[in-house]
């Protein structure tokens, strides 16, 4: 797979993974320059300003929430979980694409992940940060949130480890920590590059500390590649388990619409779906404004569209199965739940969901549309909205009408539900803007590895060894992907 394509004179019809004509030096300069330029660009200031205003709305809402209590939201019996948990699951789902790109595509030796993995992983970190706000703040007394953690206490009590809510605590904490580690490890060599490129002593000092003295020693690279590959191998089951555990928040419950064994795979596929949509939502503008067309090529965009299409179909299968379960089970409550979803008072949300998640993304079957960046951007926005609606349908619609009609109530969100949600979007974007300005967006060393001049041309017997072994960490590009 690795070496025959060039030799046979076969011309790969797909767009390249990296634009041609780059040297090690030009690559480094193009990516590092964004960080080192002196002035802030007007576009960045404008975007950052809006994002920060929304983030301020978030902080205000949080202050009011802690002061007054969860009553400022629309949550009320029977809909005890609403926007808070919808947003939590939405954000965590978005985070999963970053890990998938960083870890799973690495293990699958897809070298096209090399350029997008850093900002996708940054997106994961910021998404998990936003997600974590919700479980922390939706508790009635957030100041005793530390009770969630098992510590020896004067009450003689321990948390209930048999509950998915506790599993969430461990899963999400682990996910945040491992993602942060993975992201930081990926940055160490680039911090070394920044340290050596920096002109001002204070820049050199900061990047020097962050790079920990990295010098590109071959032995260090060897261990580095091992650690990176192992972390990827750990992150893969992690990402699958975290969203499965999040889905257990519902699946382990007993109400119709929640108690379904399909939830773990269905949620994980949905998370990848939502996450790739967000990667495109953020990635397409970043690519345009920072002129990264050589590094995020049409190949990347096409591949991401295909992943979205595939996971969208899995999600569609999940919807179909829910319909089937309701009918096949013969269970009155399941059947009512399904009828209520489609024709009840919130029925419009369900059909909006079908439009956004199932119908609109089918445009991606058409190659012309996969190559049209505006279409891809709009479709990804539809998917972002659709995935939020899916959680609304699952959470609110199942809660507001369950077994006992006398307990049925309608749910109305308040202005604080919205301000918190849009506030977290602002917070996320604020962090993204800071990342874009101060950290190399694209992994410099991983891009260098993909240049043709990075290959070691062996004239003698060692050629045989090169093809199969040299893929640690995607270090040697596999042209067969």
């Amino acid at each position, binding site marked *: 797979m690795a070496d025959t394509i060039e030799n046979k004179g076969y011309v790969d019809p797909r767009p390249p993974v990296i634009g041609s004509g780059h040297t090690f030096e030009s690559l480094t300069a193009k990516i590092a320059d964004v960080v080192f330029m002196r002035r802030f660009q007007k576009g960045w200031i404008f975007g950052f300003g809006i994002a920060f205003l929304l983030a301020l709305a978030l902080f205000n809402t949080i202050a009011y929430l802690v002061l007054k209590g969860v009553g400022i939201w629309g949550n009320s019996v029977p809909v005890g979980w609403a926007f808070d948990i919808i947003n939590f699951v939405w954000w965590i789902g978005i985070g999963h694409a970053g890990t998938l790109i960083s870890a799973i595509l690495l293990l699958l030796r897809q070298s096209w992940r090399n350029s997008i993995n850093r900002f996708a992983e940054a997106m994961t970190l910021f998404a998990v940060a936003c997600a974590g706000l919700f479980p922390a703040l939706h508790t009635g007394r957030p100041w005793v949130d530390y009770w969630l953690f098992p510590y020896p206490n004067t009450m003689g009590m321990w948390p209930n480890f048999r509950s998915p809510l506790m599993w969430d605590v*461990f899963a999400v904490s682990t996910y945040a920590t491992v993602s942060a580690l993975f992201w930081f490890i990926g940055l160490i060599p680039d911090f070394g590059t920044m340290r050596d490129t920096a002109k001002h002593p204070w820049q050199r000092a900061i990047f020097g500390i962050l790079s920990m003295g*990295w010098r*590109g020693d071959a032995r260090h*690279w060897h261990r580095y590649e091992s650690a990176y590959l192992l972390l990827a191998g750990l992150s893969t089951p992690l990402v699958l388990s975290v969203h499965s555990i999040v889905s257990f928040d519902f699946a382990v419950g007993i109400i119709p619409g929640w108690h379904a064994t399909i939830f773990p795979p269905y949620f994980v596929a949905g998370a990848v779906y939502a996450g790739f949509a967000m990667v495109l939502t953020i990635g397409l503008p970043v690519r345009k404004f920072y002129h990264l067309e050589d590094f995020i090529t049409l190949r990347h965009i096409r591949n991401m569209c295909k992943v979205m299409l595939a996971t969208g179909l899995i999600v569609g299968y999940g919807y179909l199965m829910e319909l089937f379960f309701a009918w096949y089970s013969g269970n009155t409550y399941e059947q009512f739940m399904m009828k209520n979803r489609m024709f009840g008072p919130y029925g419009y949300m369900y059909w909006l969901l079908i439009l956004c998640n199932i119908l609109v993304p089918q445009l991606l079957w058409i190659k012309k549309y996969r190559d049209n960046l505006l279409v891809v951007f709009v479709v990804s926005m539809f998917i972002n909205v659709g995935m939020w609606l899916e959680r609304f349908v699952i959470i609110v619609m199942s809660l507001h009408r369950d077994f006992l009609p006398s307990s049925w109530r309608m749910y109305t969100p308040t202005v604080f539900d919205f301000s918190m949600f849009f506030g977290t979007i602002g917070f996320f974007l604020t962090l993204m803007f800071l990342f874009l300005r101060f950290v190399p967006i694209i992994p410099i060393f991983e891009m260098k590895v993909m240049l043709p001049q990075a290959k070691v041309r062996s004239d003698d017997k060692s050629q045989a060894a090169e093809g199969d072994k040299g893929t640690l960490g995607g270090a040697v590009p596999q042209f067969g992907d």
Partner: protein
Amino acid sequence: MNRQEEHSIYGVMARFDTPTDVVRAARDANAAGYRQVNAYSPFPIEELSEAIGFHRDHVSKTVLLGGLLGAAGGFALQYFTSVIDYPINVGGRPLLSLPSFVPIIFESGILLAAFGAVLGMILMNGLPRPYHPVFNVPSFKRASRDAFFICIKASDPKFDPARTRDFLAGLGAKEVTDVEA
């Protein structure tokens, strides 16, 4: 007597411009009997670490250790709290409810395994290490950009300043410099 004390330099460094050149040079240095050789590159080159004779790394061991410790710890935590210290009898169900313990065992295993990978790699690399003699060479800045280096340490038994310099120059190096300790 310490060979490094004999020579007041850390070693001799040679710069190359392509991965092919540096790998060939490393192989030649190894063939010539030098064993204390370091190589530097802006990105990982598998053939390079092999050429200087480095084959096995132990990061996988720290990961395994971390994973086992984490999983055992997660199990021990849940066992102690749910079976011994704070047992809750719910309909006579077993206190050692293993299926419900699995998610946390799994997650804590992964967490400590990840720490094992990161800490293992960083510490085994001898990092953080802000100062290293090679940073004294002005052109070494390019090691993180577009140049490749071989450094033969003065502590190598076959090291001799003049001869080693000539040897490196003979390998086609673009630049040969002494590295101050």
